[in-house]
Protein backbone atom coordinates (compact mmCIF):
# COMPACT_ATOMS: atom_id res chain seq x y z
CA UNK A 1 0.00 0.00 0.00
CA UNK A 2 2.63 2.44 1.10
CA UNK A 3 4.87 1.60 -1.83
CA UNK A 4 1.97 2.07 -4.24
CA UNK A 5 1.31 5.48 -2.72
CA UNK A 6 4.93 6.47 -3.16
CA UNK A 7 4.98 5.33 -6.77
CA UNK A 8 1.70 7.11 -7.40
CA UNK A 9 3.12 10.27 -5.89
CA UNK A 10 6.20 10.09 -8.06
CA UNK A 11 4.08 9.54 -11.16
CA UNK A 12 1.85 12.47 -10.28
CA UNK A 13 4.90 14.63 -9.76
CA UNK A 14 6.36 13.64 -13.11
CA UNK A 15 3.07 14.19 -14.95
CA UNK A 16 2.62 17.56 -13.29
CA UNK A 17 6.18 18.52 -14.21
CA UNK A 18 5.64 17.49 -17.83
CA UNK A 19 2.22 19.09 -18.31
CA UNK A 20 2.45 22.22 -16.17
CA UNK A 21 5.25 23.96 -18.04
CA UNK A 22 3.41 23.31 -21.31
CA UNK A 23 0.18 24.91 -20.32
CA UNK A 24 1.07 28.19 -21.99
CA UNK A 25 2.90 26.73 -24.95
CA UNK A 26 0.09 26.92 -27.47
CA UNK A 27 -0.73 30.63 -27.04
CA UNK A 28 2.96 31.46 -26.73
CA UNK A 29 3.89 29.68 -29.95
CA UNK A 30 0.81 31.15 -31.58
CA UNK A 31 1.98 34.67 -30.74
CA UNK A 32 5.41 33.75 -31.99
CA UNK A 33 4.00 32.69 -35.35
CA UNK A 34 1.95 35.88 -35.59
CA UNK A 35 5.02 37.97 -34.85
CA UNK A 36 7.07 36.29 -37.58
CA UNK A 37 4.15 36.52 -39.99
CA UNK A 38 3.89 40.27 -39.51
CA UNK A 39 7.66 40.62 -39.88
CA UNK A 40 7.42 38.76 -43.17
CA UNK A 41 4.47 40.86 -44.25
CA UNK A 42 6.47 44.00 -43.45
CA UNK A 43 9.34 42.88 -45.63
CA UNK A 44 6.99 42.11 -48.50
CA UNK A 45 5.42 45.57 -48.07
CA UNK A 46 8.84 47.12 -48.10
CA UNK A 47 9.59 45.46 -51.42
CA UNK A 48 6.27 46.64 -52.74
CA UNK A 49 7.12 50.20 -51.67
CA UNK A 50 10.35 50.14 -53.66
CA UNK A 51 8.61 49.31 -56.92
CA UNK A 52 7.10 52.67 -58.03
CA UNK A 53 10.52 54.31 -57.82
CA UNK A 54 12.17 51.41 -59.57
CA UNK A 55 9.62 51.34 -62.38
CA UNK A 56 9.93 55.11 -62.87
CA UNK A 57 13.72 54.91 -63.07
CA UNK A 58 13.71 52.03 -65.50
CA UNK A 59 11.08 53.77 -67.64
CA UNK A 60 13.38 56.74 -68.05
CA UNK A 61 15.91 54.57 -69.88
CA UNK A 62 13.91 51.67 -71.26
CA UNK A 63 10.46 53.05 -71.95
CA UNK A 64 9.70 50.54 -74.70
CA UNK A 65 9.98 47.54 -72.35
CA UNK A 66 6.29 48.06 -71.68
CA UNK A 67 5.35 44.42 -71.18
CA UNK A 68 7.68 43.77 -68.30
CA UNK A 69 6.93 47.10 -66.68
CA UNK A 70 3.16 46.58 -66.75
CA UNK A 71 3.58 43.04 -65.43
CA UNK A 72 5.47 44.35 -62.42
CA UNK A 73 2.96 47.13 -61.81
CA UNK A 74 0.01 44.74 -62.06
CA UNK A 75 1.60 42.13 -59.81
CA UNK A 76 2.31 44.87 -57.28
CA UNK A 77 -1.30 46.07 -57.37
CA UNK A 78 -2.48 42.55 -56.58
CA UNK A 79 -0.06 42.18 -53.69
CA UNK A 80 -1.20 45.52 -52.33
CA UNK A 81 -4.65 44.15 -51.57
CA UNK A 82 -3.40 41.40 -49.31
CA UNK A 83 -2.16 41.28 -45.74
CA UNK A 84 -0.91 38.32 -43.78
CA UNK A 85 -3.39 38.50 -40.90
CA UNK A 86 -3.72 35.74 -38.28
CA UNK A 87 -6.94 34.62 -40.02
CA UNK A 88 -5.08 34.12 -43.28
CA UNK A 89 -2.50 31.95 -41.53
CA UNK A 90 -4.98 29.19 -40.74
CA UNK A 91 -6.96 29.51 -43.97
CA UNK A 92 -5.40 27.37 -46.73
CA UNK A 93 -6.99 29.20 -49.70
CA UNK A 94 -6.27 32.71 -48.53
CA UNK A 95 -2.73 31.72 -47.62
CA UNK A 96 -2.15 30.17 -51.00
CA UNK A 97 -3.50 33.25 -52.76
CA UNK A 98 -1.10 35.39 -50.75
CA UNK A 99 1.83 33.18 -51.57
CA UNK A 100 0.93 33.11 -55.28
CA UNK A 101 0.61 36.87 -55.48
CA UNK A 102 4.01 37.37 -53.84
CA UNK A 103 5.62 34.72 -56.03
CA UNK A 104 4.19 36.38 -59.14
CA UNK A 105 5.69 39.67 -58.09
CA UNK A 106 9.02 37.95 -57.45
CA UNK A 107 9.19 36.50 -60.93
CA UNK A 108 7.98 39.72 -62.60
CA UNK A 109 10.69 41.59 -60.71
CA UNK A 110 13.41 39.16 -61.70
CA UNK A 111 12.34 39.50 -65.34
CA UNK A 112 12.56 43.28 -65.01
CA UNK A 113 16.06 43.04 -63.56
CA UNK A 114 17.09 40.74 -66.41
CA UNK A 115 15.86 43.28 -68.96
CA UNK A 116 17.85 46.08 -67.34
CA UNK A 117 21.02 44.16 -68.18
CA UNK A 118 20.65 45.44 -71.75
CA UNK A 119 20.82 49.12 -70.79
CA UNK A 120 24.36 50.13 -69.80
CA UNK A 121 23.32 53.74 -69.20
CA UNK A 122 20.65 52.62 -66.76
CA UNK A 123 23.16 50.42 -64.97
CA UNK A 124 25.45 53.41 -64.55
CA UNK A 125 22.68 55.50 -62.99
CA UNK A 126 23.40 56.17 -59.31
CA UNK A 127 19.73 56.14 -58.38
CA UNK A 128 19.19 52.81 -60.09
CA UNK A 129 22.21 51.26 -58.37
CA UNK A 130 20.83 52.34 -55.01
CA UNK A 131 17.44 50.89 -55.80
CA UNK A 132 19.07 47.70 -56.95
CA UNK A 133 21.00 47.40 -53.68
CA UNK A 134 17.82 48.06 -51.71
CA UNK A 135 15.88 45.51 -53.71
CA UNK A 136 18.59 42.93 -53.21
CA UNK A 137 18.67 43.64 -49.47
CA UNK A 138 14.90 43.39 -49.25
CA UNK A 139 14.85 40.09 -51.09
CA UNK A 140 17.42 38.87 -48.55
CA UNK A 141 15.29 40.00 -45.66
CA UNK A 142 12.28 38.29 -47.19
CA UNK A 143 14.26 35.06 -47.42
CA UNK A 144 15.28 35.34 -43.76
CA UNK A 145 11.78 36.28 -42.61
CA UNK A 146 10.33 33.37 -44.57
CA UNK A 147 12.73 30.95 -42.96
CA UNK A 148 11.95 32.30 -39.50
CA UNK A 149 8.24 32.02 -40.20
CA UNK A 150 8.59 28.46 -41.47
CA UNK A 151 10.49 27.51 -38.31
CA UNK A 152 7.91 29.15 -36.04
CA UNK A 153 5.01 27.41 -37.77
CA UNK A 154 6.82 24.10 -37.61
CA UNK A 155 7.23 24.48 -33.87
CA UNK A 156 3.60 25.49 -33.39
CA UNK A 157 2.17 22.71 -35.54
CA UNK A 158 4.41 20.17 -33.86
CA UNK A 159 3.10 21.25 -30.47
CA UNK A 160 -0.49 20.83 -31.68
CA UNK A 161 0.15 17.47 -33.29
CA UNK A 162 2.22 15.68 -30.69
CA UNK A 163 1.63 14.47 -27.14
CA UNK A 164 1.48 16.02 -24.56
CA UNK A 165 0.90 19.33 -26.35
CA UNK A 166 -1.99 17.71 -28.18
CA UNK A 167 -3.77 16.88 -24.90
CA UNK A 168 -3.17 20.31 -23.46
CA UNK A 169 -4.54 21.91 -26.62
CA UNK A 170 -7.59 19.63 -26.77
CA UNK A 171 -8.33 20.44 -23.13
CA UNK A 172 -7.61 24.15 -22.99
CA UNK A 173 -7.35 25.52 -26.52
CA UNK A 174 -9.90 23.70 -28.70
CA UNK A 175 -9.97 26.70 -31.07
CA UNK A 176 -6.26 26.35 -31.95
CA UNK A 177 -5.80 25.37 -35.61
CA UNK A 178 -2.90 24.04 -37.63
CA UNK A 179 -1.25 26.91 -39.48
CA UNK A 180 -0.27 27.07 -43.14
CA UNK A 181 3.35 26.97 -44.17
CA UNK A 182 5.19 27.95 -47.32
CA UNK A 183 6.00 25.43 -49.95
CA UNK A 184 9.14 26.03 -51.96
CA UNK A 185 8.04 26.99 -55.45
CA UNK A 186 9.88 26.25 -58.65
CA UNK A 187 10.83 29.91 -58.89
CA UNK A 188 12.35 29.63 -55.43
CA UNK A 189 14.36 26.50 -56.06
CA UNK A 190 15.86 28.14 -59.15
CA UNK A 191 16.44 31.33 -57.12
CA UNK A 192 15.74 34.43 -59.23
CA UNK A 193 19.01 36.24 -58.53
CA UNK A 194 19.38 39.94 -58.99
CA UNK A 195 22.43 39.68 -61.20
CA UNK A 196 25.12 42.30 -61.63
Amino acid sequence: MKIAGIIGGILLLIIALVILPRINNVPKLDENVNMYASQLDNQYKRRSDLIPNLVATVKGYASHEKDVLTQVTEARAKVGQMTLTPEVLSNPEAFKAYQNAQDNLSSALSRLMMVTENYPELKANENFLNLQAQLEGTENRIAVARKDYIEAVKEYNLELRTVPGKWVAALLYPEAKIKQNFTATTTETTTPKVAF
Partner: protein
Amino acid sequence: MKLLKSITLLVLFAVTVLFSAPNFPELNNSRVVDNAGLFNTYQRIDLEKRLAAHETNTSNQVVVVTLNSLEGYDIADYGYQLGRYWGIGQKDKNNGVLLIVAPNERKVRIEVGYGLEGALPDATANSIIQYEILPFFKTGNYYDGVNSGIKSIFEAIKGEYKPASSDNKDLPMGLLLFPILFIVLMFIGTISNAKNSKERIIPAIVSGGIAGIVSWMMFFILGLSVFIAIAVFLLTLFSSNSRGNGSDYYSSGSNFSGFDGGSFGGFSGGGGSFGGGGASGSW
Protein backbone atom coordinates in the same frame (compact mmCIF):
# COMPACT_ATOMS: atom_id res chain seq x y z
CA MET B 1 29.75 14.49 -4.76
CA LYS B 2 30.37 12.23 -7.71
CA LEU B 3 26.69 12.14 -8.53
CA LEU B 4 26.51 15.90 -8.34
CA LYS B 5 29.45 16.26 -10.67
CA SER B 6 27.98 14.00 -13.29
CA ILE B 7 24.66 15.80 -13.02
CA THR B 8 26.24 19.18 -13.62
CA LEU B 9 28.16 17.77 -16.56
CA LEU B 10 24.93 16.42 -18.00
CA VAL B 11 23.19 19.76 -17.51
CA LEU B 12 26.03 21.61 -19.21
CA PHE B 13 25.92 19.10 -22.04
CA ALA B 14 22.20 19.57 -22.47
CA VAL B 15 22.66 23.34 -22.63
CA THR B 16 25.38 23.14 -25.29
CA VAL B 17 23.32 20.74 -27.41
CA LEU B 18 20.37 23.11 -27.24
CA PHE B 19 22.30 26.11 -28.47
CA SER B 20 24.77 24.67 -30.95
CA ALA B 21 24.70 25.19 -34.72
CA PRO B 22 26.80 23.38 -37.29
CA ASN B 23 30.14 24.41 -38.71
CA PHE B 24 30.47 28.04 -37.72
CA PRO B 25 33.93 29.25 -36.67
CA GLU B 26 34.38 30.08 -32.99
CA LEU B 27 34.54 33.65 -31.77
CA ASN B 28 37.36 32.90 -29.28
CA ASN B 29 36.95 36.19 -27.40
CA SER B 30 38.08 38.10 -30.45
CA ARG B 31 36.63 40.78 -32.71
CA VAL B 32 38.82 39.70 -35.62
CA VAL B 33 38.30 36.09 -36.61
CA ASP B 34 40.89 35.58 -39.32
CA ASN B 35 40.32 32.01 -40.43
CA ALA B 36 41.55 32.68 -43.96
CA GLY B 37 44.80 34.17 -42.58
CA LEU B 38 44.62 37.49 -44.42
CA PHE B 39 46.24 39.64 -41.70
CA ASN B 40 49.54 39.55 -39.89
CA THR B 41 49.67 39.81 -36.10
CA TYR B 42 50.28 43.54 -36.08
CA GLN B 43 47.34 44.20 -38.41
CA ARG B 44 45.07 41.92 -36.43
CA ILE B 45 45.84 43.62 -33.13
CA ASP B 46 45.41 47.03 -34.72
CA LEU B 47 41.96 46.15 -36.07
CA GLU B 48 41.01 44.53 -32.80
CA LYS B 49 41.93 47.66 -30.87
CA ARG B 50 39.85 49.94 -33.03
CA LEU B 51 36.84 47.66 -32.99
CA ALA B 52 37.06 47.47 -29.20
CA ALA B 53 37.37 51.26 -28.88
CA HIS B 54 34.31 51.67 -31.07
CA GLU B 55 32.30 49.41 -28.80
CA THR B 56 33.34 51.32 -25.67
CA ASN B 57 32.28 54.60 -27.27
CA THR B 58 29.04 53.51 -28.89
CA SER B 59 28.17 50.00 -27.63
CA ASN B 60 27.99 48.88 -31.28
CA GLN B 61 29.69 45.54 -31.82
CA VAL B 62 31.56 45.31 -35.11
CA VAL B 63 33.31 42.05 -35.97
CA VAL B 64 35.58 41.22 -38.90
CA VAL B 65 35.46 37.62 -40.14
CA THR B 66 37.52 36.03 -42.88
CA LEU B 67 36.46 32.57 -44.01
CA ASN B 68 38.23 29.80 -45.84
CA SER B 69 34.98 28.53 -47.22
CA LEU B 70 31.31 29.43 -47.28
CA GLU B 71 30.53 25.70 -47.40
CA GLY B 72 28.33 26.17 -50.45
CA TYR B 73 26.07 28.75 -48.81
CA ASP B 74 25.21 32.09 -50.32
CA ILE B 75 27.22 34.67 -48.37
CA ALA B 76 24.04 36.49 -47.29
CA ASP B 77 22.51 33.25 -46.03
CA TYR B 78 25.69 32.34 -44.16
CA GLY B 79 26.17 35.85 -42.81
CA TYR B 80 22.94 36.38 -40.92
CA GLN B 81 23.10 32.91 -39.42
CA LEU B 82 26.65 33.49 -38.22
CA GLY B 83 25.61 36.82 -36.74
CA ARG B 84 22.76 35.18 -34.86
CA TYR B 85 24.96 32.29 -33.78
CA TRP B 86 27.50 34.62 -32.22
CA GLY B 87 24.84 37.05 -31.06
CA ILE B 88 26.80 40.10 -32.17
CA GLY B 89 25.31 43.39 -30.95
CA GLN B 90 23.70 44.26 -27.63
CA LYS B 91 20.61 42.25 -26.85
CA ASP B 92 18.25 45.19 -26.46
CA LYS B 93 19.68 47.18 -29.39
CA ASN B 94 20.64 44.53 -31.96
CA ASN B 95 23.47 46.85 -32.96
CA GLY B 96 25.94 44.42 -34.46
CA VAL B 97 27.75 44.54 -37.79
CA LEU B 98 29.73 41.75 -39.43
CA LEU B 99 32.25 42.39 -42.16
CA ILE B 100 32.64 39.01 -43.83
CA VAL B 101 35.40 38.28 -46.33
CA ALA B 102 35.55 34.99 -48.24
CA PRO B 103 38.69 35.35 -50.38
CA ASN B 104 38.37 31.92 -52.01
CA GLU B 105 34.86 32.64 -53.25
CA ARG B 106 35.89 36.29 -53.87
CA LYS B 107 32.87 37.49 -51.92
CA VAL B 108 32.51 40.18 -49.31
CA ARG B 109 29.47 41.15 -47.23
CA ILE B 110 28.47 43.73 -44.68
CA GLU B 111 25.84 42.09 -42.47
CA VAL B 112 23.83 44.62 -40.50
CA GLY B 113 21.92 43.86 -37.30
CA TYR B 114 18.25 44.85 -36.97
CA GLY B 115 19.04 47.88 -34.85
CA LEU B 116 21.47 49.47 -37.31
CA GLU B 117 19.47 48.99 -40.50
CA GLY B 118 18.39 52.63 -40.26
CA ALA B 119 21.89 54.04 -39.79
CA LEU B 120 23.52 51.72 -42.28
CA PRO B 121 20.91 51.01 -44.97
CA ASP B 122 21.56 48.55 -47.77
CA ALA B 123 22.39 51.26 -50.30
CA THR B 124 25.06 52.71 -47.97
CA ALA B 125 26.47 49.27 -47.24
CA ASN B 126 26.58 48.63 -50.96
CA SER B 127 28.46 51.82 -51.75
CA ILE B 128 30.93 51.12 -48.91
CA ILE B 129 31.64 47.77 -50.51
CA GLN B 130 31.85 49.13 -54.07
CA TYR B 131 33.92 52.26 -53.39
CA GLU B 132 35.81 51.67 -50.15
CA ILE B 133 36.52 47.95 -50.02
CA LEU B 134 36.55 46.39 -53.48
CA PRO B 135 39.14 48.72 -55.06
CA PHE B 136 41.68 47.42 -52.49
CA PHE B 137 40.54 43.81 -52.69
CA LYS B 138 40.99 43.86 -56.46
CA THR B 139 44.69 44.48 -55.95
CA GLY B 140 44.87 41.79 -53.27
CA ASN B 141 45.25 44.32 -50.48
CA TYR B 142 42.87 42.86 -47.92
CA TYR B 143 44.01 44.76 -44.87
CA ASP B 144 43.60 48.20 -46.46
CA GLY B 145 40.22 47.23 -47.85
CA VAL B 146 38.94 46.04 -44.48
CA ASN B 147 40.49 49.07 -42.82
CA SER B 148 38.77 51.62 -45.03
CA GLY B 149 35.59 49.55 -44.90
CA ILE B 150 35.30 49.60 -41.12
CA LYS B 151 36.22 53.29 -41.09
CA SER B 152 33.19 54.02 -43.27
CA ILE B 153 31.01 51.66 -41.25
CA PHE B 154 32.01 53.47 -38.03
CA GLU B 155 31.23 56.78 -39.72
CA ALA B 156 27.73 55.58 -40.60
CA ILE B 157 26.77 54.01 -37.27
CA LYS B 158 28.61 56.06 -34.64
CA GLY B 159 25.71 58.36 -33.79
CA GLU B 160 23.06 55.70 -33.43
CA TYR B 161 23.57 54.43 -29.90
CA LYS B 162 25.27 55.49 -26.69
CA PRO B 163 27.01 53.09 -24.34
CA ALA B 164 24.87 51.93 -21.44
CA SER B 165 25.30 54.37 -18.54
CA SER B 166 25.79 51.78 -15.83
CA ASP B 167 28.10 48.95 -16.72
CA ASN B 168 25.66 46.52 -15.22
CA LYS B 169 26.18 43.30 -17.09
CA ASP B 170 23.37 40.87 -16.53
CA LEU B 171 24.40 38.10 -14.20
CA PRO B 172 23.65 34.78 -15.83
CA MET B 173 20.50 33.46 -14.23
CA GLY B 174 22.06 30.04 -13.85
CA LEU B 175 24.53 31.41 -11.35
CA LEU B 176 21.71 32.52 -9.09
CA LEU B 177 19.91 29.24 -9.46
CA PHE B 178 22.50 26.99 -7.95
CA PRO B 179 22.94 28.78 -4.61
CA ILE B 180 19.16 28.83 -4.24
CA LEU B 181 18.97 25.12 -4.90
CA PHE B 182 21.67 24.41 -2.37
CA ILE B 183 20.00 26.53 0.28
CA VAL B 184 16.71 24.72 -0.32
CA LEU B 185 18.52 21.41 -0.09
CA MET B 186 20.33 22.35 3.09
CA PHE B 187 17.14 23.62 4.67
CA ILE B 188 15.21 20.49 3.90
CA GLY B 189 18.12 18.30 4.88
CA THR B 190 18.24 19.98 8.27
CA ILE B 191 14.56 19.85 9.11
CA SER B 192 14.26 16.20 8.23
CA ASN B 193 16.20 14.05 10.66
CA ALA B 194 14.85 10.95 9.04
CA LYS B 195 17.35 8.14 8.82
CA ASN B 196 16.04 6.08 5.95
CA SER B 197 14.93 7.12 2.52
CA LYS B 198 11.29 6.15 3.00
CA GLU B 199 10.77 8.81 5.62
CA ARG B 200 12.45 11.34 3.41
CA ILE B 201 10.03 10.90 0.55
CA ILE B 202 7.86 13.93 1.38
CA PRO B 203 10.73 16.40 1.80
CA ALA B 204 12.27 14.91 -1.32
CA ILE B 205 9.13 15.55 -3.36
CA VAL B 206 8.84 19.05 -1.93
CA SER B 207 12.43 19.98 -2.65
CA GLY B 208 12.31 18.36 -6.08
CA GLY B 209 9.14 20.25 -6.90
CA ILE B 210 10.57 23.56 -5.66
CA ALA B 211 13.76 23.01 -7.62
CA GLY B 212 11.80 22.15 -10.75
CA ILE B 213 9.52 25.17 -10.50
CA VAL B 214 12.36 27.56 -9.68
CA SER B 215 14.46 26.30 -12.56
CA TRP B 216 11.52 26.43 -14.94
CA MET B 217 10.82 30.04 -14.02
CA MET B 218 14.44 30.87 -14.68
CA PHE B 219 15.19 28.95 -17.85
CA PHE B 220 11.86 28.16 -19.46
CA ILE B 221 13.53 25.04 -20.76
CA LEU B 222 11.29 22.13 -19.97
CA GLY B 223 13.77 19.27 -20.18
CA LEU B 224 16.28 21.05 -18.01
CA SER B 225 13.87 21.86 -15.20
CA VAL B 226 12.39 18.38 -15.13
CA PHE B 227 15.91 17.04 -15.00
CA ILE B 228 16.88 19.32 -12.15
CA ALA B 229 13.70 18.46 -10.27
CA ILE B 230 14.32 14.73 -10.53
CA ALA B 231 17.99 15.15 -9.67
CA VAL B 232 17.22 17.15 -6.53
CA PHE B 233 14.50 14.68 -5.61
CA LEU B 234 16.88 11.73 -5.86
CA LEU B 235 19.69 13.57 -4.09
CA THR B 236 17.47 14.43 -1.14
CA LEU B 237 16.06 10.93 -1.04
CA PHE B 238 19.33 9.11 -1.00
CA SER B 239 21.73 11.47 0.74
CA SER B 240 23.21 9.48 3.63
CA ASN B 241 23.99 12.25 6.11
CA SER B 242 21.87 15.29 5.55
CA ARG B 243 24.01 17.81 7.41
CA GLY B 244 27.31 16.79 5.92
CA ASN B 245 25.90 16.70 2.45
CA GLY B 246 24.34 20.08 2.83
CA SER B 247 27.66 21.79 3.39
CA ASP B 248 29.12 19.73 0.57
CA TYR B 249 26.62 21.14 -1.88
CA TYR B 250 27.20 24.58 -0.58
CA SER B 251 30.92 24.55 -1.20
CA SER B 252 30.48 23.27 -4.71
CA GLY B 253 27.97 26.06 -5.19
CA SER B 254 30.69 28.62 -4.73
CA ASN B 255 32.81 26.66 -7.16
CA PHE B 256 30.25 27.43 -9.80
CA SER B 257 30.64 31.17 -9.56
CA GLY B 258 34.40 30.84 -9.76
CA PHE B 259 34.08 28.64 -12.79
CA ASP B 260 32.03 31.15 -14.71
CA GLY B 261 34.06 34.19 -13.67
CA GLY B 262 36.58 33.67 -16.46
CA SER B 263 34.22 34.58 -19.26
CA PHE B 264 33.74 38.17 -18.12
CA GLY B 265 37.14 39.35 -19.38
CA GLY B 266 37.17 38.74 -23.15
CA PHE B 267 34.85 39.77 -25.94
CA SER B 268 31.61 37.95 -26.53
CA GLY B 269 28.41 38.68 -28.42
CA GLY B 270 25.80 40.63 -26.51
CA GLY B 271 22.91 38.60 -27.92
CA GLY B 272 21.94 40.84 -30.84
CA SER B 273 20.04 39.49 -33.82
CA PHE B 274 20.15 39.84 -37.58
CA GLY B 275 17.46 39.85 -40.24
CA GLY B 276 19.36 39.82 -43.52
CA GLY B 277 20.09 43.55 -43.79
CA GLY B 278 23.27 44.72 -45.51
CA ALA B 279 24.89 44.26 -48.89
CA SER B 280 27.21 41.87 -50.68
CA GLY B 281 29.77 42.29 -53.39
CA SER B 282 32.27 40.24 -55.33
CA TRP B 283 35.48 40.96 -57.15
